[in-house]
């Protein structure tokens, strides 16, 4: 089987620029040539047109349709990318967000012309507050990382408002996403890492030693990036709060507990949600995401702007005049409004019962897949633990034995028709695959994935070269990343 899969597709795509012919155009899209710019002083005008492609409408449609076919996507493949929650993005959410009246809404006239839209946003705020157990929500942040920025800026604003200026350090577990320390730095904090114990939980002793009057807060993902629930969460909460710090919840893994366990009940003061994960808005090839923040009562006044308020039956955007303690806006307008609409539709389709089942079946799928892979001969990073919605396989010993790395296994999975799990994250676990199946995959799909992984394990023992040179069936083979970084080619030039 390995030999036939090693056959390669010869096709490769031209750039749209290489399809260009001087004088060709998508004529139906061109306005009349008659408009005059003669009232613009000549020193302001462009002297040479930008070198954009000159192509027909069919050229464009065919080119980008064909490019789309050079992608793996949830709609075409199982996509077990750990920590990214690649679950089915319901088409109804997209259809609703693309209703013409929503698309036509001007962001500077929402109070006057967008009541139907604002009603959805207000209800989304309420639903997100309820499901996280927090007092208030702002939909403003445009991605998880911006939600983090907002949340940590709120922590700083809270301490500053109390005159507690000595708190200059943010604690981050060493297993955390890289965004956590990067965000803390952007908020002017220094970062101290807290180590993880051998069982995957935060080392409580190390935490207790690290906290003090300099502690602004702790950023924590729970379940953690190691795919396990922090069993000591109640003690962590006591330690940080007793030291006067605040607790930030990174909602990256909220899918694991949605509708079952609330971050508010764990004692978190502020959090962000990744709507493109937990609320199934599309990842779009890398954005747009959306990262609303939710806050406990004592931090609500610092939430970023705008938020949506209601007076009687009328909704309106609240700004700095209404919320003088806010950390301010994070975008020019209403954040990722269209993404928020999709999340609203998704939340309404789920309802409470559906939300709870998200957590249940994400957890069931992860634990089933973990069990089956262990039975197939894969080594688990935390075999003594339950999986949350994801889990880690380590290929350290496989690599020592056969030379086959986590990267090789990931690439070979592409040949077998699966997107690869997250590789080499978290950094703590050598040669790791972080695998998140999500609740929308069936047992039969998971079984096919296990069978593919079993094949790969067999190939590692019998034909490791096939793995090291994988993938073999994708439009291109492994790319020279060193060349890409050294001989930068970031734009086509004639």
């Amino acid at each position, binding site marked *: 089987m390995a030999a036939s899969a090693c056959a390669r597709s010869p096709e490769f795509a031209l750039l749209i620029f290489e399809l260009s012919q001087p004088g060709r155009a998508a004529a139906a899209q061109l306005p009349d040539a008659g408009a005059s710019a003669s009232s613009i002083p000549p020193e302001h005008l*462009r002297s040479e047109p930008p070198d*954009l492609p000159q192509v027909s409408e069919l050229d464009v449609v065919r080119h980008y349709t064909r490019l789309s076919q050079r992608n793996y996507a949830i709609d075409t493949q199982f996509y077990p990318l750990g920590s990214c929650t690649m679950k089915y993005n319901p088409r109804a959410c997209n259809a609703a967000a693309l209703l013409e009246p929503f698309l*036509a809404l001007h962001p500077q006239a929402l109070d006057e012309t967008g009541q139907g839209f604002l009603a959805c946003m207000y209800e989304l705020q309420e639903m997100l507050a309820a499901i996280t157990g927090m007092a208030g929500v702002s939909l403003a942040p445009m*991605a998880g990382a911006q939600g983090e920025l907002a949340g940590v800026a709120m922590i700083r604003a809270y301490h500053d408002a109390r005159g507690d200026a000595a708190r200059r350090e943010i604690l981050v577990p060493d297993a955390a996403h890289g965004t956590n320390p990067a965000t803390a730095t952007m908020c002017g904090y220094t970062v101290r890492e807290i180590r993880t114990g051998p069982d995957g939980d935060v080392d409580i002793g190390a935490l207790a030693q690290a906290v003090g009057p300099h502690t602004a807060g702790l950023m924590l993902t729970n379940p953690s990036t190691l795919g396990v629930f922090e069993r000591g969460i109640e003690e962590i909460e006591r330690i940080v709060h007793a030291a006067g710090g605040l607790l930030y919840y990174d909602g990256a893994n909220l899918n694991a507990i949605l509708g079952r366990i609330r971050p508010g009940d764990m004692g978190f003061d502020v959090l962000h949600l990744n709507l493109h994960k937990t609320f199934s808005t599309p990842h779009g090839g890398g954005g747009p995401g959306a990262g609303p923040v939710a806050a406990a009562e004592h931090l609500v006044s610092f939430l970023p702007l705008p938020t949506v308020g209601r007076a009687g039956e009328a909704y309106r955007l609240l700004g700095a005049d209404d919320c003088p303690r806010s950390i301010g806006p994070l975008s020019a307008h209403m954040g990722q409004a269209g993404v928020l609409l999709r999340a609203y539709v998704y939340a309404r389709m789920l309802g*409470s019962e559906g939300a709870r089942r998200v957590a249940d079946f994400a957890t069931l799928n992860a634990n089933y897949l973990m069990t089956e892979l262990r039975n197939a001969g894969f080594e688990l990073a935390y075999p003594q633990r339950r999986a949350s919605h994801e889990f880690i396989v380590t290929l350290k010993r496989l690599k020592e034995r056969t030379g086959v790395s986590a990267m090789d296994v990931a690439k070979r999975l592409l040949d077998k028709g699966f997107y*690869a799990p997250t590789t080499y994250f978290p950094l703590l676990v050598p040669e790791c695959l972080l695998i998140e199946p999500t609740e929308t995959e069936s047992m039969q799909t998971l079984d096919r994935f296990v069978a593919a992984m079993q094949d790969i394990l067999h190939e590692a023992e019998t034909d490791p070269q096939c793995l090291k040179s994988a993938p073999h069936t994708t439009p291109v083979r492994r790319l020279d990343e060193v060349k890409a970084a050294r001989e930068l080619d970031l734009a086509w030039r004639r």
Partner: protein
Amino acid sequence: MPFIPHTEADIRAMLASIGVDSIDALFSEVPQRLRAGDHGGLPPGMPEADIMRLMRSRAGACEPYRNFIGAGAYEHHIPAAVWQIATRGEFYSSYTPYQAEASQGTLQVLYEYQSMMTALTALDVTNASLYDGASALAEAVLMAVRAHKSSRRVLMPASVHPAYRRTVRTIVRNQGIELIDVAYDPERGHVDTASLDRLENDDIAALVVPQPNFFGVLEPVDRLTDWAHAHGALALALVNPLAIALLKPPGKWGANGADIAVGDGQPLGIPLSAGGPYYGFMACRKDLVRQMPGRVVGRTVDLDGKPGFTLTLQAREQHIRRSKATSNICTNQGLMVTASTIHMALLGAEGLRRTAAECHAGLMHLLGNLSAVPGVKRRFSGPVFHEAVLDCAAPVEDLLRALRAQGILGGLGLKRHYPELATGLLVCVTETKNECDLLELAGQVLRIMGEGRTSAAAERTIAH
């Protein structure tokens, strides 16, 4: 239950494999107190037919208007092909191209986007996009400070979009960066260059140069760029990407060109959509590329020497550098950029230039019509692109309300953002407005202003 495919038989088989008797048992590591109770808090779930009915009714509560508001979000024609292709599942439901071999579609689109954006801005390199124009400006400010090394002071003209200025403040405020206001010339409506020369401390990291500025007025970009460079500062262009298909691009400003250009890509194929999602673009000189935040796609070759695309320069990014990263940003606006790339390919340089010219001509036409209306005059004398500030003798909010009653969004009142421009109305014309629309707006303004001021006789005159 929606989107969960498991049959009862599947569930039994899976639990048996795991060796537990219920799904609840899988949560055994969670402290009991946290597992208690029903934590949903959502209304009952709805099937697709019901939610679509609800959403159509919510959409119906958003009435259509003839829109003359710009202020950072512009109504333009978007070819039908743009979003039909962008929402193909292969684009819509893929993610960050970490596995480049399985993501060549997304990566090539991003490379083509970068190529188009460098051509448009006439700068060397761009990233694969940021969240929106305002946050891109914030990232540019941070980047300029990193690149400059000695100064943390950035000049921020009052003619920059007020929401952009506020956003920048939110994002950079905790990093010890000083944002210094620069006044606008009250007659011409662009940066008061004399006030720049009066600055005492000239240790400046960057000067932000908007083109066109928030008032629609064209800034003296050559002079401002050269001023920045003469004072050892970076020139940081903030541009409307459609406008620069017609106007001089940032890379050609002054003697040496702007150093960094940012803006909001919305005018290039993104619907107004209540304010988002849009995307921010960022372009810069080649020697600044390692200070640039965000994802970047490069062209390289595969094992067989065949061309292919991959994320590159990742050593700047948070997943590698953690607390020392150039930014915490770890995404771009992939889907919006996909749409925008298709849009730019369809319009081409000529289509974009004609669109920009038509916007400008439409505005000039409207201003001509309005010049006949008593009590309305242009506030600033500087040349404009497709927006202008009107000075109105009647209270602006009353005028706008009366226009809304006629199905017209007449512009943005400036009082909230600029108390000294309380009588100012920022009005925008794009190619979506034809001559009838322009006449209608001018006629309604004439009628309403007349009602406010004089007699029914005037109204009868205007009715013709």
